[in-house]
């Protein structure tokens, strides 16, 4: 089995804060991997390091059997990767079609393919009617959908999605889920973070749970289902004691 993502000892510090500490991830190709964790656990930081947006403090990373230690190969492998980063990556002053066209050309797709895929993606994301709007005039959910479209456009082998369903309406969310499923069915790998455990439970084949920058669980969905639900597993992993203990003092009496 080939590995789509492999890290060893991956660490990132911000000053004295250790956002990610000694992360050893192994994600097999063709898996739908859900990366879970409480707020501030280090999920986005991990994705940023894997996609080259942030330099790790130490540790090694391999994507699609390519070592990211070599900058030139790290750049070249981006050809096979699609990303929806935490804060998106849109140009304020382009329209959706222009932005997608630009991305398509940068991935060296033929012009006709770019056109056809743009049209399909815009229709799917329900953005085709917003031709005249610039992305800076988009709503939060619209921006997210555009970023998703841009990530899907080059038909990558590996998709990194940082909270793809956050802010997206139910229709688009449903379509996105179906798209991602067929993506994986064709052999691609999806690595996503989400706080919506129901969606993760329905979609993912494998789950990793991170807390305080350390990977605390890495199991397959089948194993989880054998022993209970994902929520139980998650709460057990990141400390469900809190749920009971903490009450607001002025609401008590």
């Amino acid at each position: 089995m080939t590995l789509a993502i492999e890290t060893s000892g991956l660490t990132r510090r911000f000053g004295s804060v250790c956002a990610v500490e000694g992360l050893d991830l192994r994600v097999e190709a063709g898996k739908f991997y859900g990366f879970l964790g409480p707020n501030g656990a280090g999920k986005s930081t991990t994705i940023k390091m894997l996609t080259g947006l942030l330099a790790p403090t130490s540790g090694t990373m391999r994507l699609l059997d390519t070592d990211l230690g070599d900058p030139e190969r790290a750049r070249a492998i981006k050809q096979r990767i699609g990303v929806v980063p935490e804060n998106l990556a849109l140009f304020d002053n382009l329209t959706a079609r222009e932005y997608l066209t630009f991305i398509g050309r940068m991935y060296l797709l033929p012009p006709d393919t770019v056109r056809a895929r743009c049209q399909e993606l815009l229709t799917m994301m329900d953005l085709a009617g917003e031709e005249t709007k610039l992305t800076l005039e988009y709503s939060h959910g619209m921006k997210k959908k555009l970023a998703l479209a841009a990530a899907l456009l080059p038909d990558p082998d590996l998709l990194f999605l940082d909270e793809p369903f956050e802010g997206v309406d139910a229709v688009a969310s449903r379509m996105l889920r179906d798209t991602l499923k067929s993506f994986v069915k064709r052999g691609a790998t999806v690595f996503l973070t989400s706080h919506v455990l129901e969606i993760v439970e329905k979609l993912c084949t494998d789950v990793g749970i991170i807390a305080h920058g350390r990977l605390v669980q890495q199991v397959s969905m089948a194993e989880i289902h054998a022993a209970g639900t994902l929520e139980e597993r998650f709460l057990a992993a990141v400390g469900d004691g809190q749920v009971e203990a903490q009450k607001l003092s002025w609401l008590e009496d």
Partner: protein
Amino acid sequence: MYLQHLRTLLWLRWRLTRNQWRRGGQVNAILSLLVSILGLGLAVAGGVGGLLIGALALAKATPQATMFAWDGIVAVFLFVWLLGLVTEIQRSEVIDASRLMHLPVLLREVFFLNYAASHICLSLAIWVPTTLGLAFGLAVGRGAHQLWLVPLLLAFFFMVTAWTYCLRGWLAALMVNQRRRRAVIMGVTMFVVVLAQLPNLLMNVWRDDTRRVGAAVAHDSGKNAQVVRVCTLANRFAPPLWLPQGAQALQAGRVWPSLIATAGMGLLGLLGLARAYQLTRRFYQGDDRRKTAPPPVATPATKVVRGRLLVERTLPLVPEPAAAVACANLRSMLRAPEVKMALVANVVVFVILAGGIFLKHGAAVPPAGRPFIALAAACLTMLGLMQLLFNQFGFDRDGFRALVLLPAQRWHILLGKNISLLAISLPVFVVLLSLLTVSAHLGPAELLQACLGFCSVQLALGVLGNWLSILTPYRIAAGSLKPTKAKASSQVLMVVASMFMPLLLLPLFVPPLLGFLCNEFTKVPGTPITLLGAVVLLGCSCLLYGCTLKPLGRLLQRREQRILLAVTSEVE
């Protein structure tokens, strides 16, 4: 007004500033401190200087001379003030009220705090002590009644700042609409730029006239009296000139006119402040007076047929990713208001300035000077584009993240960026050159040489621009030219770079100099030498650009994460 709110808001601002300094690091804190100390030093020097001048020189002047002196002071102050307005046309609030409006805070409190904070600027820090020093100097030299100048001055500054604040608030309100803000920024910048250039243009046009009529005026005291009459009239009716008017009266020993001027300017200031508050309220809380909703803007039906988009264009000989970057970058630059402002503020100034000067004096340029004049077009174009050239990633903001995520070769990205800048600089150059051609009667040889020079300068400065863009990127806020996130150290580097850039342009003038020397001191004709030199220079620039492009691409790749941090994070 609740005292606790005020205290909390002040504390908030203090915390924001402190945290910002902490994040910026020691070097930046020290640099900021140095700038503050410099401002303080200038303020003290201005105050002492004003005191001495007032006590020793101005105290002995006639009332009319005093008025003219104050006229001059007001004119210079307003000019400097306007220049300050251009650089920061939008109001950047010290405390962003939109982040507080959901809290039980009165807008009034935030408004007054922000207005008070708008006084913290270098030009006021120098002008207020200087003019107050003058007033005290006059009081020492001429008697205590001159102290009435102090309220007069304060009323003057109050009026100016209140109306400035009002103007900026009005702009901010207009710019809520993203589309309209483009037009607004363009229009206003244009207006202010032309206004700021007015003295320059007038000087240029008038110098001739005065030279011509100077002799006549000398005997013709009637004409002189007329000038004085016009000035006096202006002083009576233009509010900012009520200050000189009042000062004149005080110099003549009359207090009442100055009191009236004080009251008048104070009232006008209050009016401006009230207007500003009204606008601010409307901006944050919606217009409560307009009951009927504005007519809905007709949205054009979605166009079904469309031609080829600008971002779809390919360029001959240019690698596909570079062409894609060039087209997309050009597309966004043509739309971005902040880029337009950079263009307007710099290019238009140069075009107006140079155009004015050359149209007036172009015919007087001797033939030997023409090759130099022709090159001026290339230099002025690049000087005007400096801000875009030296900070090519600062305008991308979040878009730069897309560039980092892309698989493209980094030198393709640099090349694309440079091509898109060329698409902007070329038309500017052509306009300037045509202007010069008409006014200075340039010949074909000079035109050719100017074009060669333009290519050289574009390439050579492209190298410098790429290098600086990679080393000192700073974020440009959407819709404003203010570098919101520049660290003090990169600001210093920016200033240094812009000071040395004219020096870097000097090699450009070597070929025409050689040609000139040949013409003067040898029998060899100068023109071929000049052209040959220009070709050699172009060859060198090409070589320089070609050799550095890939290494700079690698540098970009190494530093892209740091650039990303600089251009994406926003600090209050």
